[in-house]
């Protein structure tokens, strides 16, 4: 069930992409998205220095010097380019990426995101998370609606360390799609058979219901 829900999130986010866009996919659920962008003319950017990332190669074609940001072997699409880390983050920070899809630990009702550290645990990894939050033109959060122990992730205020002051544009969970406008959160789609009351129960963040369409799974 859980994997089906993760795929549903990936598919819904793929629907958001437009032809010609440059897209960076983070770790976790975003790594499922490439399976659902067939027919879309988009270009995948990988933070370790690749634009035009293709699917996983057959074992005989693996080159561990051609990898994704998750350090998995990948291929290059026709027209791909390779560059160093400083140019790669110039693209990220400088606003040259159209969309970044990121996993998250928490998002607050203004769209501020916490996706790199948990209080009380070692803070020893940040990677490119803060650069992507600061620089991508549009940020879509791909996340399960709550954590595995049912703790809410969409909150009034963050309790985990912030990833930056830049607010995200959209959240897609297995239950719903939220959009942010002027630091206000709007429920725009329901993706499961959950009732609006139950959704409210598992979503401490304040949001306005502004449903454009109901997509029951």
């Amino acid at each position: 069930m859980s994997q089906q829900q993760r795929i549903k999130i990936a598919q819904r986010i793929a629907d958001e992409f437009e032809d010609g866009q440059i897209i960076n996919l983070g770790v976790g659920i975003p790594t499922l998205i490439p399976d659902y962008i067939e027919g879309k003319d988009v270009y995948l950017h990988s933070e370790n220095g690749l634009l035009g990332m293709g699917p996983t190669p057959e074992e005989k074609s693996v080159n561990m010097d051609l990898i994704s940001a998750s350090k998995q072997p990948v291929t290059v699409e026709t027209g791909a380019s390779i560059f160093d880390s400083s140019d790669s983050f110039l693209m990220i920070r400088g606003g040259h990426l159209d969309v970044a899809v990121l996993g998250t630990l928490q998002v607050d009702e203004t769209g501020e995101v916490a996706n790199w550290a948990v209080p009380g645990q070692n803070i020893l990894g940040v990677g490119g998370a803060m650069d992507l939050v600061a620089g991508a033109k549009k940020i879509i959060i791909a996340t399960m609606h709550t954590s595995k122990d049912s703790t809410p992730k969409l909150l009034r205020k963050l309790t985990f360390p912030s990833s930056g002051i830049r607010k995200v544009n959209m959240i897609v969970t297995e239950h719903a799609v939220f959009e942010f406008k002027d630091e206000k959160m709007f429920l725009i789609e329901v993706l499961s058979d959950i009732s609006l009351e139950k959704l409210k129960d598992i979503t401490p963040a304040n949001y306005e219901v502004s449903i454009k369409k109901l997509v029951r799974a």
Partner: protein
Amino acid sequence: MKKLLKLEDFSELIKDGDKLLVGGFGLSGTPLSLIDEIAISGKKNLTIVSNNLGEKGKGLGKLLVSGNLKKAIGSYFTTNADAVNAWSKGELEIELVPQGTLAEAIRCGGAGIGGFYTKTAVGTKLAEGKHQMAFDDGEYILEKAIKGDVALIKALKADTFGNLIYDQTGRNFNPVMATAARLVIAEVDEIVEAGEIKPEEIVTPHLFVDYVVVTKYVKQGGRYVEPTTAN
């Protein structure tokens, strides 16, 4: 070739307490042979600037086992259990830097720029103690440039002048690191005659490279393996 260096002569160029810039993203584009030499050199109190410390027991991860390190500066250490353990026992200092800030700080270090303002990490724990300033389009923080005593980089090929090209995403931090240290040593798979790499294909021009060492590793099935285990 004037810049050719024997692998066994390399570690004499490193001093205790040096700050080393080491290329690589995970194990990709990592100077594995040079790292192995450091692991058996007995050098102490080294500071490593690298995106991460390899993997447990592999690449820079070996230096955690051999005890050469005082400090690591990079963006991602959580996936190497040895790094996390060494840090929690107080045996390793860690300075965490966002990946893009790390790359740009090294670029500035090589470009004669003392520091730069970035919007990455504004309002986070990683901005604490850093100067913040408002520019036309928002808040930025000041980050200082990073320079090293020695840069250890990995390229696919050098020519006899020391011009370098890289293998795919093995490029990563290597070209910027080649610009930002007093002494730059490139580990390569192959050395070719000057002229064989076309001028427009060269990524790192030879002026940045002091020494070239040929790797002892062999690439099999897309992975570098040590010659002792290679068939």
